[in-house]
C-alpha cells in the first residue's frame, strides 16, 4: 500500500511544486528524491512494515513478487529520471506535471502488481494508461507526438472496451470480480472462457503482443524519446506483472487451449517484432520493434506460469528496463537517431559507446549480461513445463535474429567512421550510465543478487 499511496501523494507534490517552484531543473531533483523515498518505503513494505494499515482484502494483496516488481519499476524510474531528467524538461513545457504523471503511473503499477479483483485491474490499467496518453502528447507542437497520442488513445480505449466486455462476461459466469472466485466452484463455461479470451486480448494489447501490437511502433516512434523510454520499459513490464497475475489466477486452467493461444501469440510477437526491426533505419523505431520482440520473450513467462517464469520475469523486467533506459538516455541526446547517427561513436565517446554496447548485448541476450539470464530463465521456465519445446526453439531462432539488429548499432558505433553529434554529457551522466552497466553485468554474472529478494 506504501507505493500506491505515496506515489499518489508524491504525484500531488510534484503538481504543486510546478506551481511554487519555477526552476525547472529542480523538478528532477525533487522527483529523484521522492522516488528514492518511494523505493525505500516499498522495500520496507516488502520486509513487512507498511506505513499504512489499511484493510485491502478483496481488492489488493501484496506479496513478495508484486512488491519486488514494484521495487524494480521504481528503481528503473529513478534511474530513468536521473538519466533523462533534462530531456523531460525539453519534451514539453509542463515538466512538473510530467513528473507528477510519472508518479501516477507508478501508482497504477502498484495496483496492477497486487490486484486480486478485476475491478482493481481495470482501474489500475486505466491509471497506468491515461497519464501515458498525455505524456505521449506532451510535446504539443510536435505533430508526430500529437498523432501518436491520438492513435494511442483511440486504440487504448478500444482495448479497454474489449477488456470490460471480458470482465462483464466473467462476472456473468461467476457472479464476482474476485480473481480466485471468478469461476464459481470450478464450473466454467463458454461465457467465462470468452470473457477470459477477451481480457487476454486486451492485455496483449497493453503489453504490445502481436497481433495487437500495431500501436506500439507508431506511438513509441512518435512520442518524445524520453517518454518512449519510460513507456517502453517500466510501463510495459508492469503490464506483464498484471498479466501474469491474471494467468496465474485463472487462465491457466483452460489447459491446452490456452497453451496454444499463448504459443501463437508468442510466435507472432517474436516474428513481428524481430523481423520488422531488422529493416529499420531509425534506432528509435528499431527499439520500438525490439520492445515488441522483447515482449515476445516475456510472454514465455505467461506460457509457463511457474517459479522460474516469475523469477525470469523479474529479471527480465530489470534487465530489459535498465538496458533500454540506458540506450534511450543516450539516444535522446543525439541529433540523428538513425543508424548512421551512431557511426563512429566509439571514437568520440569511447565510454558511452562501450556502455551502449553492454546495453545492446544485454538486450540481445549475450551471456555475462543480465539479458542473458533473463532469457535463460524464460526459456528454462518453458522447458520446465515439458510442453512445446518447439516454441523454445523458435524463440532462440528469433533471439539470433535479434542479435542481427542490435549488433547493427554496435557495428555502427565501433566499426564505422562518422561524426556523431551528441549533446554535451556531464560526468554525472556518465557515472550513472556506468553504474547501470555495472548492474547489468553484475546481474549477468550473479542474478541471485536480485532474485534472492524474492525469498527472504
Amino acid at each position, binding site marked *: 500500500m506504501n507505493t500506491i499511496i505515496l506515489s499518489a501523494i508524491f504525484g500531488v507534490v510534484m503538481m504543486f511544486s510546478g506551481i511554487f517552484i519555477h526552476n525547472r531543473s529542480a523538478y528532477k531533483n525533487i522527483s529523484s528524491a521522492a522516488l528514492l523515498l518511494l523505493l525505500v518505503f516499498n522495500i520496507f513494505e516488502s520486509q513487512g512494515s507498511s506505513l499504512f494499515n489499511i484493510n485491502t482484502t478483496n481488492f489488493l494483496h501484496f506479496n513478495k513478487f508484486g512488491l519486488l516488481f514494484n521495487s524494480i519499476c521504481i528503481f528503473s524510474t529513478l534511474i530513468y529520471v536521473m538519466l533523462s531528467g533534462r530531456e523531460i524538461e525539453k519534451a514539453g513545457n509542463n515538466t512538473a506535471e510530467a513528473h507528477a504523471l510519472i508518479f501516477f503511473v507508478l501508482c497504477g503499477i502498484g495496483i496492477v502488481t497486487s490486484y486480486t479483483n478485476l*475491478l482493481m485491474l*481495470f*482501474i489500475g490499467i*486505466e491509471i497506468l494508461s*491515461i497519464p501515458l*496518453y*498525455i505524456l505521449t*502528447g506532451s510535446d*504539443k*507542437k510536435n*505533430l*508526430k507526438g*500529437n*498523432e*501518436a*497520442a*491520438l*492513435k494511442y*488513445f*483511440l486504440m487504448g*480505449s*478500444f482495448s*479497454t*472496451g474489449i477488456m*470490460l*466486455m471480458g*470482465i*462483464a*462476461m466473467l*462476472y*456473468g459466469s461467476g*457472479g*464476482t*470480480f474476485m480473481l480466485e472466485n471468478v469461476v464459481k466452484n470450478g464450473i466454467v463455461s463458454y461465457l467465462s472462457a470468452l470473457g477470459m479470451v477477451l481480457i487476454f486480448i486486451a492485455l496483449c494489447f497493453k503489453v504490445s503482443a502481436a497481433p495487437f501490437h500495431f500501436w506500439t*511502433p*507508431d*506511438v513509441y*516512434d*512518435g512520442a518524445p524519446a524520453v517518454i518512449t523510454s519510460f513507456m517502453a520499459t517500466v510501463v510495459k513490464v508492469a503490464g506483464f506483472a498484471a498479466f501474469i497475475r491474471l494467468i496465474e489466477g485463472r487462465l491457466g486452467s483452460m489447459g491446452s487451449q490456452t497453451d496454444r493461444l499463448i504459443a501463437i501469440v508468442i510466435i507472432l510477437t517474436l516474428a513481428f517484432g524481430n523481423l520488422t526491426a531488422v529493416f529499420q533505419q531509425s534506432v528509435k523505431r528499431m527499439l520500438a520493434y525490439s520492445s515488441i520482440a522483447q515482449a515476445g520473450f516475456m510472454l514465455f513467462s505467461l506460457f509457463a506460469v511457474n517459479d522460474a517464469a516469475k523469477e525470469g520475469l523479474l529479471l527480465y523486467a530489470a534487465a530489459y528496463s535498465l538496458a533500454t533506459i540506458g540506450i534511450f538516455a543516450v539516444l535522446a541526446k543525439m541529433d540523428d537517431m538513425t543508424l548512421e547517427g551512431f557511426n563512429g561513436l566509439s571514437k568520440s565517446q569511447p565510454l558511452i559507446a562501450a556502455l551502449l554496447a553492454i546495453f545492446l548485448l544485454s538486450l540481445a541476450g549475450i551471456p555475462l549480461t543480465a539479458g542473458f539470464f533473463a532469457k535463460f530463465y524464460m526459456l528454462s521456465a518453458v522447458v520446465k513445463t515439458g510442453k512445446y519445446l518447439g516454441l523454445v526453439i523458435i524463440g532462440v531462432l528469433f533471439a539470433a535474429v535479434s542479435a542481427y539488429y542490435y549488433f547493427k548499432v554496435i557495428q555502427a558505433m565501433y566499426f564505422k567512421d562518422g561524426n556523431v553529434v551528441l549533446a554535451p554529457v556531464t560526468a554525472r551522466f556518465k557515472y550513472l550510465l556506468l553504474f547501470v552497466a555495472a548492474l547489468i553485468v553484475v546481474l549477468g554474472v550473479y542474478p541471485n543478487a536480485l532474485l534472492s529478494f524474492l525469498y527472504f
Partner: protein
Amino acid sequence: MPITYYIVLSIVLFCIGVVGVLTRRNAIIIFMCVELMLNAVNLLLVAFSKMHNGVAMAKDPASTVGIDGQLFVFFIMVVAAAEVCVGLSIIVMVYRNTHSVDVNFLNRLKN
C-alpha cells in the same frame, strides 16, 4: 427477462460500436463508438447483476449479491468520464495543430 436477451442485445450494441470504430474516420465519432461499446458492457453488467441477485434472493430475500456488478458499472462511468476528458483534449490538440480530426490523415508514423 431471459438473460440471453440482454447478452445478445449487449453484444450487438458492442459490435455496432466496433463497426463504428472500424468504419468511421472522424476521431470524435470513433471515440463515441468506443463509448457505445462501454455502454453495452454496462448494460450487460447490470443485467448480470440482476441475474445473480435473483438467484441469491431465492434463498435470502435480503441478499445484496450482485451489487458489485452495479458498482462496477459506476466505476466504468467514472473512468469513462476521465477518459473522455483526456481524449477530447487530445483530439482538440490534434485539431489545433492539423485542423483535422480525420484519422486517415494521421500517417506520418508508419512502417
